[in-house]
Every structure is written in structure tokens, then in C-alpha cells.
């Protein structure tokens, strides 16, 4: 298949990315070449083959879910850009009425 600029814009929306209008043409072409390359897999007969989704062949064993204090709350906030009263402050999620909408 080949992808077009509309597909790229759709996927960008899913990935929460945006591309400048003037770069989207070149980017689409590049991504299309890469997608054509990965689609060589179409030639491979995989009928009845189970997929491998993990890196391990041994079993992953879950440990007991025990509460344990490992970090100070303040430390975990060390890289937060804007904080207030122990919360992370972000722009309004709902329309705050100031935009005139």
C-alpha cells in the first residue's frame, strides 16, 4: 500500500504529534518508503504460527503486591514544572469560559 498525507495527519493525531504543513509532504514520502519496506512481511507464510510478544521464554513471576515506602513525595515532584498544594498544575481541561466559546 502507499500512504498519503491524510493518513499521516490521522496517525499524528493518534500519537499526539503535529507536523508543520511544509514538512508533511517530505515526511509522508519517507514514511511511505519505510512502510513499504516493512510490508515485505506480506511474502512470509505465517499460517498457524503463534506470535512472540515478549522477550522472555522463562515465566515472569509476579511478586507480592506489598506496600513499601521507597520515595519521598517531594522527591517525586522534583521534575514537575508547575505545582501547587501537592498537585501538578496544568492548563484547563474544560473550557474555562475565558476563550469566549
Amino acid at each position, binding site marked *: 500500500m502507499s*500512504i498519503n498525507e491524510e*493518513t*499521516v495527519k490521522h*496517525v*499524528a493525531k*493518534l*500519537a*499526539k*504529534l*503535529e*507536523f508543520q504543513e511544509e514538512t508533511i509532504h517530505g*515526511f509522508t514520502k*519517507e*514514511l511511505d*518508503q*519505510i*512502510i513499504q*519496506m*516493512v*510490508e*515485505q*512481511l*506480506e511474502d*512470509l507464510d*505465517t499460517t498457524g*504460527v*503463534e*506470535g*512472540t*510478544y*515478549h*522477550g*522472555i*521464554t*522463562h515465566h*515472569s*513471576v*509476579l*511478586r507480592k503486591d506489598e506496600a513499601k515506602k*521507597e*520515595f519521598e513525595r517531594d*522527591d*517525586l515532584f*522534583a*521534575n*514537575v*514544572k508547575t505545582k501547587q498544594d501537592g498537585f*501538578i498544575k*496544568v*492548563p*484547563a*481541561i474544560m473550557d474555562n469560559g475565558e*476563550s469566549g466559546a
Partner: protein
Amino acid sequence: MNILDHTLEELHEKLVNGDLTSLQVIEAVYKRIEETEANIGAFLALSKEEALSQARAMDEAGIDPKNILSGLPIGIKDNIVTKGVTTTAASKMLEDFVPVYNATVVEKLTEAGMISVGKLNLDEFAMGGSTENSAFKITRNPWDLSKVPGGSSGGSAAAVAAGQVPASLGSDTGGSIREPAAFTGIVGMKPTYGRVSRYGLIAFGSSLDQIGPFTRTVKDNALVLNAISGHDRRDSTSYEGATPDFTQGIEEGVKGMRIGVPKEYFHEEAKEKGVVESVRAALKKYEELGAEIVEVSLPHSKYGIPAYYIIASSEASSNLQRFDGIRYGYRAKEVNSLEELYVKSRSEGFGLEVKRRIMLGTFSLSAGFYDAHFKKAAQARTLIRQDFEKAFEKVDFLVAPTTTTTAFELGGKIEDPLEMYLADILTVPVNLAGVPAVSIPCGFSNDMPVGMQLIGKHFDEQTLYRAAYAFEQVTDFHKQKPLFKGGK
């Protein structure tokens, strides 16, 4: 002889005898960095004061004769988190990120008494094969400064090759330890998936990522892997079985061993013939040492690249969702809504290659393409893993070139992402199968080092070290030093 020409083992002896102090070793590291860094550009950050004070404390307390790595220096790839020391993954996204905890490998190195001297450059989020994707700087190959050191662990490899540090840590998702080791003429091990805890490694492709050591000699490499291996309750994919002493039996040689030569890995028609020729010559050496060479086939190898780029990018697109500008990392300014904050922070914070991978991964996982892409790649991965399993029924380990060419020119592939991807053809199947592989120097082509990889059975790094060591004892490729060609 320069202090830093010694192996870790030799340095340890000198520390114990009192011929050297840890402080002298660490000072030698920073002096060497000062002399060479303008040409190489391996480090993103140095932790000189902390390292010197740790060395002083170590000297005062006395070097533990039983603890072979104590008081010795190491460099850390900057996608491995270090408490209190900025960790960027070479991304603008994490330019000012100061971790509040240490990666398990960093804790383990500290326990072993190793001293971290600084953080090493990489392709942004470990995505790339040349270290040119770093948001901050390029790193040059010590053998020829007009060439790339490989990637993504290019800083880790260049620092060891340039003699700045005797050891460093890298990470390998699709060849990011082995390719730079090959390009810079040193030893780089990608351990079995699960051997080393990934806790504190900034995730790229979680089912593929492994941390491993770079060193100039095989035994040094085994010593560092000894220190960082083992189960970790904070990484449920880490292996619960025992960790052997990887230096045990290292001197026993390869007599009677069966070495598989996968025919798909020898591109006889390749442009640079010197690579395959060097590996063929190395195989002759192994025969002289008493090993038997057996041709084997890994018939699904050609599907390695497409399967890898789908799986690694899909996992990356999921892993990198956490970078949203809220809790840490880059945050866009002048935004009016939460949605805009996410989109602008990500679009301004990530570099182009990272965005390309996120886009490919998101596409491969999206409705309508999941079966043809992600599921198909997972099935191809099973077939690739089975290829290795079948081969290992007949042989003890495999030998192949690590790369199809020696190091390429800076700027040579960066404009053509597809060509850069295809360069990983000989390294990605190992990650898909989860098996261990070590790249060691085995010759020169166009005056640049050639690497060969020894690929082993799951959790059989010991055989690889033993065979690599046997080759090293009868060759001197590891003793040759880079020329800093084209340097000031």
C-alpha cells in the same frame, strides 16, 4: 605505559599492591578526557568532583582485594538513570531531567565499588546507528574523526576506544552495543534478554532492550557483566536463575567446540569485501584452535529488519507516551489547553527520528493495520527465534560479521533513514530471539576495525566469553590503538 592502557584486572592488582591509588586512576581518566574530548565528543556530562571524592574515600577505606572492580572508573550511557545526575537520553525532551533514583545497574556498580565518571552520548532515546541523532552533539570515531562511532551507544564505544575509560555501559535494542563496538574495535556484549535488570533504563523497545558492557578486552567485559547481572524484583522480566561467574572457564579454549556459520550473514557480494574476509580469516583461526566449523542456515533472517522495525517502533510509540510535558521533561510554553500542551510539548521536545519511529509504531498498531503489521511481525519473530533454536541443536555458538561495512562517514546515511535502518540487518535478529551476542575486533578493512559477533544460546554468555577469549589470546587486534586520524 599510560595508566589507562591497563585492563581492569591489572588496575585492580596495582590498587591492591599500592602501586596506584584509585584517585590516580580517576585523575588519569579526566586528564585523558581533557586531551581527547574536543576530537571525540563522547560525554554529555562529567561528574568529576563526585568521582574524585569517591576515589579518595575508596583509597582511605582501602581497596578490597576480593572486589575486583572497586575503585575503578566506568562511563554510563545517558539513557540509564543516575540519581541526582542529569539524564537526558540525548533528547531535548529530557534536557533538564534529574532522576530521583538510580537504575539497578548503577546501584550494582556502586556496590561493586565502581566509580561513574560521566554520562555518554547516544542517538536520541537510543534510536539510530550513528549517534548523529543526539539532540546535543555528534560523537566521532577515534580511528577516523570523519566517521561515525556507530550507535546508538556511540559515546560509550568511542570513550572506551579512545582510552578515556576502561569500561562503559550501553544498551542494545537492535544492535546498539554490538554495532558501535564493531565500528570502534572494542568488545561489546548484548546479554540474553532478562540477564540484566532494565529498571532505570529509559525504555525504547521493552521486549528487546538489554544493558551490556563495553571494554577493550574480553575478560574485562565478563567482569563488568558479573557485576550488573541478576534478578531484580523491580523488573519482572529479569531472569530468576543463577548468575554464573562469567570468567569461570574462560581460559579453556574452543577445542572440540562446534561453531555454526549462518550462510545468510555472509554477504559475499557486499561492497566492502574486507569485512567478510576478516571474519572468514577468524574462522580459520578457530579451526586451528581445534573448533569445528559447520555451515548452518537461519532462513528467516531477511525478515528481521521489517519485523524489528515494526515491533521496536510499536513498543516505542507506547513507551514514549509518558512524555507528555506534565510530570517531567520538556513543557511547551504559551499553550491554551491540555491537549495543546501534550501535542506541542511532544512535537517540540522529540527529534525527527524519534517522531518517525512513533509514527511508524502508531501506524502499525492502529485499527486496520494491526494484523498485517504488528501481529505479522510477532509471528515472524517466532520463526526467527526458531531458526536460532534449530541451529543451536547442531552447534555451540554462531559466528558472523556484526555489520556489513566498517564505520561510515559522518553525514553519510543520516539523510536517508531507510538506508540507516537496513544497516542493522545482521544485529536485529539476535534481539528478536532474545539470545546473547558479543562483538569482538577481528581485523581491519579500509584501515577501520572489523567486528565479528559470537551468538549464543539463551543464558550461555559463558561459552561466548570463552570462545572470544580464545580468539583474543592468539590475535592482537584488541591491542591496536586508534589513530585519531584527521584530529587537531
